[in-house]
């Protein structure tokens, strides 16, 4: 395949993914329509299936695309052994960057195939592992209270998920997120004189 043909295929694929993301955010996974996706992407209906044979493959490709972008952004933080506060802030920023899609995933997760659910879960594992290591480091340093990091992280991940699943009932994460982060850090932190900023923790 020559390079211009490959570039054209890559561009077409990207347009389909962008169109599919909008379609999924508006109509949800079950009601997403490939004809509308094709129309919005400016391609023939059959072209969608040349690139993605199922709706699941489409959703999986968007999850992977976001995971790669998030991983690239997170890399310097993970390398530099960022503080827990910095990692929580990064998590909020990454969710906010594609909030409608994050809401879609949280809402539809129980109804997706086991394979797709697994991919979605694993897509955030590197960041969650960095949070776990940061909690362990804080516990060893005597900054954080003792406790199983996986259980402690369940409070954070559960609060995030609740806000993603119920956007009609709860303030958006862009608004509530910093308070959730600071409260979570307070829960973990052993009181010490001279309070520091959340990003120091």
């Amino acid at each position, binding site marked *: 395949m020559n390079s211009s043909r490959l570039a054209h295929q890559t561009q077409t694929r990207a347009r389909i993914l962008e169109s599919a993301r909008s379609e999924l955010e508006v109509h949800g996974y079950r009601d997403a329509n490939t004809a509308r996706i094709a129309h919005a992407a400016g391609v023939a209906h059959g072209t969608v299936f040349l690139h993605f044979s199922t709706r699941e493959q489409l959703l999986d490709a968007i999850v992977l695309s976001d995971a790669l972008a998030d991983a*690239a952004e997170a890399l310097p933080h993970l390398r530099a052994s960022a503080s827990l506060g910095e990692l929580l802030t990064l998590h909020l920023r990454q969710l906010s960057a594609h909030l409608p899609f994050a809401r879609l995933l949280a809402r539809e997760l129980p109804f997706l195939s*086991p394979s797709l659910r697994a*991919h979605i*879960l694993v897509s955030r*594992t590197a960041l969650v592992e960095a949070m*776990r290591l940061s909690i362990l480091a804080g516990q060893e340093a005597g900054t954080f209270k003792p406790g199983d990091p*996986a259980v402690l992280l369940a409070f954070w991940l559960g609060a995030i998920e609740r806000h993603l699943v119920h956007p009609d009932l709860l303030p958006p994460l862009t608004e509530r997120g910093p308070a959730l982060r600071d409260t979570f850090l307070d829960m973990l932190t052993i009181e010490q004189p001279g309070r520091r900023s959340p990003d120091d923790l």
Partner: protein
Amino acid sequence: MTCESCSLPLISPEDHGAGDPANRYCRYCTDAVGTLRPYDAILADFTALLVRTHGLTEAAARETSAGIMATQPAWRGR
């Protein structure tokens, strides 16, 4: 690009087996010289990672790990 064994994103050279950007597998799925480790060893490590990060039960973590690995080129159909 992702690891063709476990789907971990491969962003920088150090993410690849033996630090070799041409290696299709991640540093966790390979040994010191970049050779793909046995399936069972990778599955055990992957399962343990999901238990300690996401707090999954052992059974759910194992099923999730095996499900991911089964979709990757190294273990497809397994």
